[in-house]
């Protein structure tokens, strides 16, 4: 047996994972190799040192649990974001949580692991902005975002309808005819909208197929790039997963 092979056997023997034939081979090698014998002695010294130390466990300070809980009390459990939950639903794996930098509490810095969002207890009443921040949640952001999106969409629809009315493809309801004259400036506004509509229509119908192809390719490329960014993000968050 080579010395190198015997070294691995020694480690296994220390863990009691060596079967009898292998142990016999190791013994045979040790009997004939002074270098390995010295190594074996040193290994056993290290082993027995560590085993002895393991018999004397270190005990945590008496107030350890209390200290942990006082930090837990000011650290709300962080829920995974909507994006994380979606990502987990689509890709599997586990959600991760971004931990924010340490926040000062009453002027005192609280060390956190990487850190976590802190509910900062304050003297006095919170201001308007803080109240809004406390109210704000991912769900509320979604709600507000959806509301503004719906608003924007209805504006666009209104604008398009107005355009159709002005260029005369659609009969204008009689109740709205007065409003569309816009207090005497109706004619100029109608001309402007009509001109914009014509330009837009020309743009859409007059597009070169080559340009359209190039635009499609560019969009696909952007899509690929986006997925690379997503993949990098996912890899990074996987590295952040602790367990």
């Amino acid at each position, binding site marked *: 047996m080579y010395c190198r092979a015997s*070294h*691995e056997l*020694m*480690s*296994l*023997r*220390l*863990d*009691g994972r060596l079967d009898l034939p292998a*142990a016999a081979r190791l*013994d045979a090698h*040790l*009997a004939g190799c002074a270098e390995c*014998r*010295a*190594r*074996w*002695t*040193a*290994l*056993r*010294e*290290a*082993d*027995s*040192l*560590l*085993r*002895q*130390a*393991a*018999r*004397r*466990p*270190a*005990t*945590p*300070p008496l107030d*350890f*649990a209390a*200290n*942990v*809980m006082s*930090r*837990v009390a000011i*650290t709300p*459990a*962080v*829920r*995974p974001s909507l994006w994380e939950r979606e990502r987990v639903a689509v890709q599997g794996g586990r*959600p*991760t*949580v971004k931990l924010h930098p340490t926040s000062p509490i009453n002027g005192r810095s609280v*060390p*956190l*692991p990487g850190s*976590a969002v802190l509910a900062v207890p304050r003297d006095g009443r919170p201001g308007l902005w803080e109240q809004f921040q406390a109210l704000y949640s991912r769900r509320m952001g979604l709600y507000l975002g959806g509301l503004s999106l719906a608003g924007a969409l209805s504006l666009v629809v209104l604008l398009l309808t107005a355009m159709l009315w002005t260029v005369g493809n659609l009969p204008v309801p009689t109740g709205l005819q007065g409003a569309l004259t816009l207090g005497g400036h109706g004619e100029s506004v109608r001309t402007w909208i009509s001109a914009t509509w014509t330009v837009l229509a020309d743009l859409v119908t007059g597009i070169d197929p080559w340009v359209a192809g190039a635009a499609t390719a560019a969009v696909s490329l952007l899509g690929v790039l986006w997925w690379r960014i997503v993949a990098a993000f996912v890899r990074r968050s996987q590295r952040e*997963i*602790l*367990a």
Partner: protein
Amino acid sequence: MTIAVAYPSTPAFVAPSSCVTGLPAVENATQAEERVWIERALAGDQTAFAALVERYQGAVYNLCYRMLGGAAEAEDAAQDAFLRAWCQLHTFQRERKFSTWLLSIASHHCIDLLRRRRGISVPLDSVEIWATSTEPEPEASTLAAEARETVRALLDTLPPKYRLVTVLRYFRDLSYLEIAAMTGLSESAVKTQLHRARKMLADTIRLKGAPANVLPSLP
């Protein structure tokens, strides 16, 4: 010359309050109880989490103590590990063992700290491995303190990942498979790392010479 020493599996440290025993039935009961605590903690119940802290503080603190070498550092790191567990409790997969998950958080944290510390570490040659503690000790515990200092200095010579497998093997008395589950390594990688770690320790001992009080039981 024949060396045949049987190494019994030493009862390494187990968490206090007699919670972890080897009996499967008891273990199941323990785990069921834990699952209830975890569910309650997930719902925001801090007293349930406090029960988990109470149960595992010894195990986590010990791991950190052996990884980092100092009591103050160990306490900070162990607190951080629990806080991290609290923040990320929802990422805990129910089919895993809670202790494995918690200790893997603690070990990752310790490795991070050690890596950050590496910049200010001193080269091996300048370390007085068998130096005794400079603090005054009662006569009776001097030997124990010396041995503790020795072990600390010895572990200090290992790079973080080797240190982790060594600490898990000796101070948590985990099997290769359990270490693999905790570190995310394969079982054979654990075997190799443990082998290399021991080789380094043995080399250090041969280089510096072992203290006389270390080996009372060797033939």
